[in-house]
């Protein structure tokens, strides 16, 4: 039976591909599997059926790190795809590889493709834009951290589930009440560096690194050991000591515990919405990421994104670039974007897609899904909240994870741990600066 279905699939593939042989093939390597992979394949199919000139061929190359690696290794061997999905952490690496990429604005003008940079949400495209406003890659999936609340847990602890949770001070009061009522996991998090240092810094409009977080040059130095970050991490460390903050792991391990109803608060990507909605057997709500009221009299700035963008790689034929440009243009259309945003929980990358989603009544029917967008667009991004552009950033995040683990375990104070992380990370930044000279 299995063999039969494989044969049938192969046959279908061959027969289906035959009429399209005349079309120019354009390769796209990506990192999505499961539901996201299906939705991505659907986009490709829609594009391929919408015209006869080009055929996009998607290939899954593993997780984000593995996909970037596959792209780099392929480039070294002269076999690179036309388009490569690269997570936000790899942005500086791609930018520095001048001979290996075709910046998006160049691609669009070279191929005479319709392209309006103003259509994209400033807070989303900012991450992938040069300081003089040129878009380098197309944001594909973008999300931002929000606070997930288990309302049932709050009720059980005698708290008002609709209580104000805008600031960490107010969250701290709730944590205290939860702990007193015997709750075993008042707060947990996913992606600790991204949420509690990178976004904390942007949200409070303070630098994560000098030189506009690396946007203005590779001679940037890490700066996340400032007073606000230290105070926040120390507060988390104290909560960890009291059993109010439960550290579950470096990635999104905390998600399983929140979805199972074990944890009351959970800081995680807005893209976690679909999973929570599907699995949670309790009443939940999405709130803005909290900020420190004492540190911010005038309210928070904006949060930054995580996710991936599509980079176009150098070394291909003009006709193939036309296909890539047409596809990137297609992905930016309001209809495709609105569908992607609603299906996945990722942010809409254009203002038109956000408007369309609102007009379709999606936000009304799914309360909480509008929070992330609002958090990104509340204020115009500053040099501290446009994003991060740091070389060797995957490794630097690893260092931050290690040092935070030392802090949660009580081996180091927040100041000691963050000072260590800054010192170790700066060494890697200097190596990166040197390697790209």
């Amino acid at each position, binding site marked *: 039976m299995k063999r039969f279905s494989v044969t049938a699939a192969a046959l279908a593939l061959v027969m289906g591909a035959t009429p399209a042989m005349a079309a120019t093939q354009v390769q796209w390597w990506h990192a999505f599997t499961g539901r996201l992979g299906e939705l991505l394949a659907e986009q490709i199919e829609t594009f391929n059926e919408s015209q006869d000139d080009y055929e996009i061929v998607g290939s899954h190359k593993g997780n984000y790190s593995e996909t970037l690696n596959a792209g780099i290794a392929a480039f070294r061997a002269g076999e690179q795809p036309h388009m490569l999905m690269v997570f936000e952490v790899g942005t500086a690496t791609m930018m520095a590889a001048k001979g290996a990429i075709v910046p998006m604005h160049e691609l669009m003008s070279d191929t005479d493709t319709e392209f309006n940079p103003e259509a994209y949400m400033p807070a989303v495209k900012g991450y992938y834009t040069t300081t003089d406003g040129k878009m380098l890659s197309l944001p594909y999936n973008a999300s931002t951290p929000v606070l997930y609340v288990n309302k049932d847990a709050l009720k059980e602890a005698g708290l008002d589930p609709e209580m104000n949770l805008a600031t960490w001070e107010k969250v701290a009061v709730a944590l205290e009440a939860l702990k007193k009522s015997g709750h075993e996991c008042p707060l947990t998090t996913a992606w600790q560096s991204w949420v509690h240092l990178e976004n904390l810094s942007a949200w409070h409009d303070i630098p994560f690194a000098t030189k506009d977080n690396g946007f203005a040059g590779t001679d940037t130095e890490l700066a996340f050991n400032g007073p606000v970050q230290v105070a926040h991490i120390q507060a988390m460390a104290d909560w960890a000591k009291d059993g109010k903050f439960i550290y579950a792991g470096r990635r999104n391990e905390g998600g399983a515990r929140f979805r199972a109803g074990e944890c009351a608060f959970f800081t995680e990507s807005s893209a976690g919405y679909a999973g929570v909605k599907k699995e949670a057997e309790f009443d939940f709500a999405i709130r803005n990421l909290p900020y420190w009221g004492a540190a911010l009299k005038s309210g928070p700035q904006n949060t930054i994104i995580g996710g991936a963008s599509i980079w176009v790689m150098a070394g291909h034929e003009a006709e193939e670039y036309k296909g890539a440009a047409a596809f990137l243009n297609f992905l930016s259309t309001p209809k495709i974007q609105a569908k992607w945003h609603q299906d996945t929980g990722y942010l809409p990358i254009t203002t038109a897609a956000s408007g369309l989603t609102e007009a379709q009544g999606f936000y009304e029917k799914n309360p909480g899904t509008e929070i992330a967008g609002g958090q990104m667009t509340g204020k115009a991004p500053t040099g501290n909240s446009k994003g991060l552009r740091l070389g060797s950033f995957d490794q630097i995040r690893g260092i931050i994870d290690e040092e935070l683990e030392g802090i949660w375990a009580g081996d180091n104070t927040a100041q000691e741990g963050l000072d260590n992380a800054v010192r170790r990370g700066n060494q*890697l930044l200097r190596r990166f600066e040197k390697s790209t000279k």
Partner: protein
Amino acid sequence: MHLDNTMSQRVTFNNKFLPYLLLAPQMLVTLVFFFWPAYQAARSSLYLPDPFGLSEQYVGLENFTFLLEDAYYRASFITTAVFSALVAAISMGAALWLAIMADRIIKGSGIYRTLLIWPYAVAPAIAGVLWLFMFNPSIGVAPYYLKALGYNWNHVLNPGEAMGLVVAASAWKQVSYNFLFFLAGLQAIPKSVIEAAAIDGAGFWRRFWTIVFPLLSPTTFFLLVVNVVYAFFETFGVIHTITAGGPQQATTILVYKVFADGFVGQDLGSSAAQSVILLFVVGILTIVQFRFIERKVHY
């Protein structure tokens, strides 16, 4: 003895080049698959390349000084030593015990042996995931029962537990291989020697320590070398899936750092320098094993 019969007629080759020609394929394989990559690694360790290979700079020994000045990297040597010693000791100890037990079984020994060999077919990353599921602090079976006993298991923050877990997973995977060799070794020991000792009144443990264990020593030594190499080079799949080197750097062994810096961090210069250092470490270790430990082996 076997050779004497067949080689009774001495064959001589007059062609001076024939021996070289016959050796050539082996030499070629060695050159292409060993010396060439080793040379590449040694060369890369002196350069700082960008990930895409668009440019590189000669930096002399900077990659090495950068590593050796890093306290975490120096600590990684200790971590590697502890990890390898534990993996070798536990996997060999368990395998020896199982082999002795299986050797005594008369009925159904085939089934026991087959079952004991199974884990060897499990890929390292799968073994890692398997153990990770069992010991996952929030959904694992083991932490659930440990909690009932009053012990709070949390290997994501506790370095000792993290090390214990990667050691257990790595050792478990290697037990089958060791078992196979120990069992073969046991079966090669002449029964008459053991029976003679038994008639003289030697108990099971006395027979084991004075006869069986010394006669097994060639097998034990071979396995020691193999297991240390395994712990050094083949366990990073297990570590990658279970702890990714954490918490902090409690389970970052040397090879895992080579992998993480090179394939995740794209820092090929540092990764190459680490490979060169590792080459020396393994070289020294091999000399130590053959010089000092092999002397105690009875062939």
